[in-house]
């Protein structure tokens, strides 16, 4: 009950702040449409090479890339949201005011990011929906596998985000985790091209990245209308990843928090 009330407080706060920037929503829509247009024409161009579909697992390039981009963006937002929320509160001067309320700091940071989690998820749905409008070969996925996959994707992406927030609390600037993961995921995650064309060593690395499993799983679900067994290996890997990195991220976050309170640097930025 209390958690629900606090969660609601954060959702309302961030929604009110978001709508106070009136042109922001319109700019986001325009950005989505402009981006989709680029990928639509790129997809149309690649459609002239039928052998390409074979290496993309029978998918057209537009559908392939729209799913890839959706989850690259999701990864990027979930990785950075916790750290950026901590930093925003530090810079805005509101962190101290929140920290003297009777709530655990980790709960405050997690709840601060709730709106971003919700809006990022809605953004993905909107992006995929508009991709479908542009002609992507998407089908409505089976609900249970899609929901399960979304939950483990969210948990594994967020685990790195929480670890990254710990780094921001302690080091203030410089967050190598997010940077490395974002760069690695863009290059190796099978977002823009299949990982099968990468050198063998890079392919091994690619399989370690959560985004590889996220995009591949969702491509199976919404482009190939696959069911649970087809995404099972991805579901398994992401669950293991989240099971390792979520507690690790929280532990590092708590450690950083304690050090910052000892050193008196919690609200410095």
């Amino acid at each position, binding site marked *: 009950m209390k958690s629900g009330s606090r969660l609601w407080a954060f959702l309302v706060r961030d929604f009110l702040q978001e709508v106070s920037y009136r042109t922001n929503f319109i700019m986001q829509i325009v950005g989505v449409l402009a981006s989709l247009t680029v990928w639509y024409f790129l997809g149309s161009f690649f459609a002239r090479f039928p052998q390409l579909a074979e290496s993309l697992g029978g998918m057209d390039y537009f559908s392939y890339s729209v799913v890839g981009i959706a989850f690259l963006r999701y990864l990027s937002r979930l990785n950075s949201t916790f750290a950026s929320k901590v930093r925003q509160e530090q810079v*805005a001067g*509101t962190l101290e*005011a929140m920290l003297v309320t009777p709530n655990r700091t980790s709960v405050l940071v997690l709840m601060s990011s709730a709106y971003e989690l919700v809006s990022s998820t809605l953004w993905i749905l909107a992006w995929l929906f508009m991709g479908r409008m542009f002609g992507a070969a998407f089908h409505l996925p089976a609900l249970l596998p899609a929901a399960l996959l979304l939950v483990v994707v969210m948990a594994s992406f967020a685990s790195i985000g929480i670890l990254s927030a710990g780094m921001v609390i302690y080091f203030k600037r410089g967050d190598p985790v997010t940077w490395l993961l974002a760069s690695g995921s863009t290059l190796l995650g099978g977002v823009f091209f299949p990982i099968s064309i990468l050198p063998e060593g890079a392919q091994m690395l690619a399989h370690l990245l959560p985004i590889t499993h996220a995009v591949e799983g969702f491509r199976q679900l919404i482009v190939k209308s696959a069911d649970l067994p087809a995404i099972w290996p991805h579901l398994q890997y992401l669950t293991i990843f989240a099971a390792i990195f979520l507690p690790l991220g929280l532990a590092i976050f708590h450690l950083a928090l304690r050090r910052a309170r000892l050193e008196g640097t919690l609200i410095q930025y």
Partner: protein
Amino acid sequence: MPRSPHDPAVFTRGLCKSFSSRRKISELIRHPFTKGRKIVALQGVDLEVRQGEIFGLLGPNGAGKTTLLKILSSLVLPDAGEARVNGCDIMQDEMGVRRAIGYVTSDERSFYWRLSGRQNLIFFARLFHVPAAIISERVDSLLRRVELQAKGNEPFSAFSSGMKQRLAIARALLHDPPILFLDEPTRSLDPVTARHIREFIRDKLAGEGGKTILMATHNLHEAAGLCHRMAILNRGQVRRVGRLDEFRALFAAHRTYRIDLDRQVNLEGVGRLVSDNADGEENGAPRDTADSHRVRLLVELDQDSDGALSALMARLATSGARVLEFTRQEPSLEDIFDRLFSEGSTP
């Protein structure tokens, strides 16, 4: 909760805190494994704040006032020592401490500028676990109490400094805590607004509300006008704790006399005359005044030196100096605190 009304609202014993200074990059390269220089913020602070009193923490900038408040608010962990707030140990029961306190800073940035004052209070009310059913009523009542009911729906960014400070006080009262920590509550406010805030603290918070208030300030007049007792903090140490009249009494050992003389006298002779009767060359040195016909002597004599004063007056008279005005001067607050702050300080 304190067990009895006589238990202190805030108690600290041997509280110590030091911070490492930031190291330059060149230092880090030359000595990567050595730690930065320690800056001592608090050294063995012992304090007891009684329930229902307004207690001032006075000290110059860097004395350790804010660090102490942050430790008591569980924002910063101490290196050593113990502290209890409303009976809750700050290390063992952080949530108990936070439930018992309202913390008011002078930082105007501690609110969300794009939300209204009311929306800000509703947000913080939920974080303070105020039951949802009474949040609206509580927020309205507090806005009325701090006289912001008419401005509650305006964006925080449109608030004046005084309004922001009043909203910060309202936020600290959302969960009706028994103890308030105020860190420089009137800093950056104009004199009239500052006076209103002080009256509000004294009459509404401490008077009607019965709150215990621990207030950090370097405004001597504010402390003198508000605080029942105060602690003089300097370089992280508590130099003295007491009431203002107790501090004034410390000066009873010395009395300062102001003697205005007609300028048509031999000032050198007068200077020598006074030096013979008072300690130190500066003591009694002639000073100019706004009145070009007058010269002023400030002479500090021991309390039991009535004989010395008589002798001085007699010698002034025989030297031909014309005394225009003679008054015994009460030490100003600045004099008192200047002496208290410098007690035990090593240059």
